[in-house]
């Protein structure tokens, strides 16, 4: 299903990103022009492009599915209502994610993270499993637990970098903070991720 990896000048394999391809980006700009002209069908197409990416981004920040739905809807309502104000100085995705991030922080202030037995999700199951599968599941559980321990700001940077494949300048725009802050957050966050995974990633450490 995946495309073959691209290779940059250093011979570094680059995974295909979740970012829209250049042709997709053109489509989005076109869609937004139609949204500005109050075209609901175009807005639905835009919603369908952004819904999965925003849902993923927001669940990492908010932890409450009901709140994710609310913030996602609010975000897309702002896109609909203020489409005219998008001047194209940044990418459309940067603008949409920035709205979602601000809305998420406001919602978080109203509804702090649910208090849970966080360790519960990171405990390793005692069920017998093949070695490889067990190792996979250990890494997965450790990562889920480690992400929970990060601050919301750190989670946002980590997820936007590793999953959404965004550059640090774009992340700085979304989070409305200096680029050095993004680098510092990432630096500390991955140090903590590395610590959390230290028992599972012998090959990488």
């Amino acid at each position, binding site marked *: 299903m995946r495309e073959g990896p*691209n290779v*940059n*000048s*250093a011979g*570094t*394999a*680059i*995974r295909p*990103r979740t970012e829209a391809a250049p042709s997709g980006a053109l489509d989005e700009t076109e869609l937004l022009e139609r949204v500005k002209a109050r075209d609901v069908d175009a807005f639905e197409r835009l919603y369908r492009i952004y819904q999965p990416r925003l*849902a*993923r981004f927001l*669940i*990492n920040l908010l*932890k409450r*599915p009901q709140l994710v739905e609310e913030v996602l809807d609010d975000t897309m309502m702002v896109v609909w209502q203020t489409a005219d104000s998008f001047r194209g100085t940044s990418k459309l995705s940067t603008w949409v994610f920035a709205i979602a991030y601000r809305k998420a922080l406001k919602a978080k202030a109203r509804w702090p993270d649910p208090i*849970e037995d966080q360790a*519960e*999700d990171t405990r390793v199951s005692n069920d017998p499993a093949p070695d490889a599968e067990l190792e996979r599941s250990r*890494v*997965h559980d450790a*990562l*889920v637990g480690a*992400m929970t321990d990060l601050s919301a700001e750190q989670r946002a940077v*980590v*997820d936007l*970098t*590793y*999953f959404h*494949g*965004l*550059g*640090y300048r774009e992340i700085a725009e979304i989070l409305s903070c200096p680029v050095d802050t993004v*680098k*510092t957050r*990432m*630096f500390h966050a*991955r140090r903590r*991720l*590395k610590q959390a995974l230290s028992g599972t*990633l012998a090959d*990488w*450490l």
Partner: protein
Amino acid sequence: MPNQIDFEAKPHHDAEELLPWYATGQLQGDELALVEQHLASCAHCRRQVAFERHMIDEFAQLTPEVDNGWARLKRRLEAPQPLQVQQRSQARQSWWDKVVSDCAELLQSVTRPAVAALAAAQVAFVAIAGTLIYSLSQPSYQALGSAPAPQSANVIAMFRADTTESQLNEILRTNGASLVGGPTSADAYLLRVPAVSREKTLAKLRADKHVLMAQPIDGKTS
């Protein structure tokens, strides 16, 4: 020592900070050159790049929506006590509801004069059969933590369709009756009336213009 890396040195720190975006292919120009040049001489950062690539793979497979959903569902699975009690009482109620509804469907024919006589005979039979089945449905033990045993009904009644809730409440109140169950699918209600005055209460209920029928259901005569 020529190979010693000074982790506090600015070039090392600058390059190391950029490694996540180097691994995702987001660096260009001077920044890409800086990192590549540094990697050539820093084994620590080369290992770090391997870690970054591993993280990218892991995050591609992370599904926080599913993980959160599963954690939520698992918490429900791990709280079995209240769920079991609820299931047991629901099962009993719906089973009994069915018996009552079967009774009531037959009793409904009372409103049609042509079959009234036949229905009267059926009512007598159903009342006895219902009693037998109901007694069998009673739990023979009282589990710790289970809900109090429901008060058993001794009258089944049906009301005219245009009876309001407040009228129904008034009828129950004036007859000292309490609601045990219903409405069933046939709109019948199970009532508990004082055993000692049941015959009188039944007569009063039958005389009420809102009551279509009122029958004893536990087969006892008081």
